[in-house]
């Protein structure tokens, strides 16, 4: 097990290095350049002063070497946009994203997995039909459209819930206020994920429920509940874990469209802002964080596999 973890750690370091190099090359190759230099009113002298202050007058390999040497010393650099450290910028956004994406993921799992299992048990039954219809619609509706419709209905028309933001400005952190702001974006963010996960769960469970060992379990007199959950679903969960694992990086990366529609101060919007403004240091910092998040999530998925399926365990 420890050897496995060490190997994975080595892989992770390598992957991060490759990702950072490629990202650095891509962001510098993108047309335009840092937005603070894209002001047509800047004089040549002003532009040169800014370039030299930010080190942009150096050749790109030198800039990369400088960035890397700072990174090794634990310094993620300063943002062009915010004129402040990237760590503090990310730290101010990450909790909001964890809250929103975490809530959405919980909702997704709590709704999709039981419904998927029920649907699989009686394919063609009314639960199955209703859920499938819902999943079909939910997967087809564009996120921004759903978001704006919900805002128009619940915030503009009925005025039940706030139209945007993570909390009412000036109201000191009340839980109910945070929940009210969280409801619509979490619902929107959970919708597509729920539909996808429902379809996967249903397909996976249907496959497993038809297998011989399930029949054997029934034949030896295990209760229907036990058949479904202890024998059936435990095996059906393997592909589901992978699907959930794929959704996990959103916890750090944020969901750009949902965050934009609900002006939610999270990582997704920050990433978009940084990319549009060609804020090289911030783009690099976010990319590194999200890549690390993806690596951690895929490790978690593997560990979950070991727990669910002893045959996959590395020490076996």
């Amino acid at each position, binding site marked *: 097990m420890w050897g496995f973890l060490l190997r994975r750690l080595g892989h992770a370091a390598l992957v991060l290095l490759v990702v950072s190099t490629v990202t650095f090359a891509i962001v510098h190759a993108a047309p335009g350049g*840092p937005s603070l230099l*894209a002001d047509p*009113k800047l004089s040549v002298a002003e532009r040169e002063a800014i370039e030299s202050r930010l080190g942009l007058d150096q050749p790109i390999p030198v800039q990369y070497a400088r960035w890397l040497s700072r990174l090794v010393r634990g310094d993620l650099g300063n943002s062009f946009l915010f004129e402040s450290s990237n760590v503090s910028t990310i730290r*101010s956004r990450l909790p909001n994203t964890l809250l929103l994406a975490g809530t959405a993921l919980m909702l997704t799992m709590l709704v999709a997995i039981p419904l998927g299992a029920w649907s699989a048990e009686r394919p063609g039954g009314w639960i199955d039909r209703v859920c499938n219809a819902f999943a079909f619609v939910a997967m087809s509706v564009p996120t921004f459209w759903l978001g704006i419709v919900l805002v128009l209905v619940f915030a*503009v028309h009925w005025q039940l819930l706030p139209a945007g933001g993570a909390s009412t400005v000036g109201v000191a952190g009340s839980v109910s206020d945070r929940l009210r702001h969280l409801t619509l974006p979490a619902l929107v963010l959970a919708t597509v994920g729920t539909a996808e996960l429902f379809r996967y769960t249903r397909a996976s469970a249907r496959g497993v429920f038809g297998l011989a060992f399930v029949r054997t379990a029934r034949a030896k007199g295990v209760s229907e509940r036990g058949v479904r959950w202890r024998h059936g679903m435990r095996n059906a969960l393997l592909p589901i874990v992978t699907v959930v694992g794929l959704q996990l990086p959103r916890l750090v990366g944020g969901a750009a469209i949902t965050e934009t529609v609900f002006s939610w101060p999270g990582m997704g919007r920050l990433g978009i802002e940084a990319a549009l403004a060609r804020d090289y240091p911030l783009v690099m910092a976010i990319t590194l964080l999200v890549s690390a998040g993806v690596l951690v999530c895929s490790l978690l998925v593997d560990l979950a596999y070991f727990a669910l399926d002893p045959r996959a365990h590395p020490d076996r």
Partner: protein
Amino acid sequence: MTTSRAAWCGMTLGALAAVTSLACEGGEKSAADSARSRRLATDSVAGSVTSGGVLRIALINDPIFDPVIAPDLGSVMLNKIIFPGLVRPDEQLRPTPDLAASWTAADDGLSYTFALRPGITWHDGAPFSARDVKFTFDQIIDPTSGSRLRSDFAAVAGTDILDSLTVRIRLKTPFAPFLTLLGYNTGILPEHLLKGAPLTQATDFNRRHPVGTGPFKVEEVVPGASVSLVRNPRYYGAPPHLDRIVFKIVSDVNAQVAQLRAGELDLITVEPATLASVHDVKGVTLLQVPVVQHYYVAFNVARPMFASPVVRRALGMAVDRNAIIKGVMRGYADAPRGTIPVVLRAFFDDSIAPIPYAPDSARALLASVGWTAGTDGTLHNAKGAPFAFSLLVDKGNPTREQTALAVQQDLRKIGINVTLRTMEFSALVRDHVLPGKFDAHVIWWTTPPDPDQYAFYHTGQDNNNVRWSNRTADSLLSLGRVTMDVAKRRAIYRAFQRLEMDDPPVLVLFYPREIQAVSTRLHGLPSLGIRDALRYSERFSIREP
């Protein structure tokens, strides 16, 4: 320059209007309607004003609290409130006293002496003095400070403290726009908090705890979400009415509109393409204000195709500006006569007739310089080369994209083949406009409220991106900067305006009006663009209907 909005705005609104009955019906508010609402909004200021209340304004990006280093719209809006300048513009955009109670200009125009208003304190309680003014101007002209106001104040030679409340700013040459620029983006910074380190490194000040002298001070900053300002009880001017001003960071225009309609925002600015969604909404008034901007098609005069003034004049006649003003701007723009916008009334010559839409005359003019129509109607020169070029426009802004499309279609009608290319604004500017790698592009200038356009249209200047050069214009623009007498200046800029009719530096499309969608609860907003209006935040008040 304002940043462009997401490309899918138009799509969203279209889809919404079709599907949900909650989306409002189309149709535009007429100019007369708006003028009436504007009167209502200002009339009510005269009556009794209630104190208290919170005003909520949309902001598109996180601000940097420092007027000297931050040029973006979000920062400018906040800094106008937090950091007053020596003067501020009145509704006619003329400088009036602010931190300075009065001033005198030397007869030779080479220095200005300001008598500061006594008894002003910074938000932290420290006294404001001439030292702060000197510190700010030293920073502005320092090439290493990160100052974005350096080229505005290139004429400044230095600042002398005469006593604690008197300061003299010395100029290298007489500089007529000086006072106007002082009231534009030039907020005064506190020396006692910022001395000793580059302005760009004062992170705690710039991002969280700025200290100014304005009517409201920063109470709380939530990155990516909001900036709350609270009334400054020590404000030197008339006591502010509002308790608080909250700036909510809402980058998406649809989200801004939704929050305005939900009563969660009181003031947003909208583009003509978004008008339908704020029109006829209960509790929302539409106001319009002419702003100091000109939108234009830039032709690269360094390219032989556009070198002749005759060609540029002909192109100007081939574009139907009134159709663009009506169709794209929904009437929220004024017809142009040169590059000096109509809002600068003291300098604008409205006796000049606007360039007519006359495609036939345009064709005749082009034929006179060798561009003749072939059998298929397209224009060719003597060598048989077709009149064809590419027109660049930034992606995502419906106003500019639709304008570029209209220009393309109008020019096609007289046989010119225009290829449209859209790209991100930063790519347009950095890769094409600044290095001069373009045939033509659609863009705009936002200028200080002064007719001085030396930086944009004088030969060889940094911002003369079209490479236009006209000797007479050069001497007029140089003279206009050093002439202090208003009547003489007026004559100079009117001569420049007439010259632009014969040798157009750019194809001016329109002077836009800013559209403000404002909650009917808000009163006391001066008739100024949002940036300048925020210089009067102490006059704003909230009254529940």
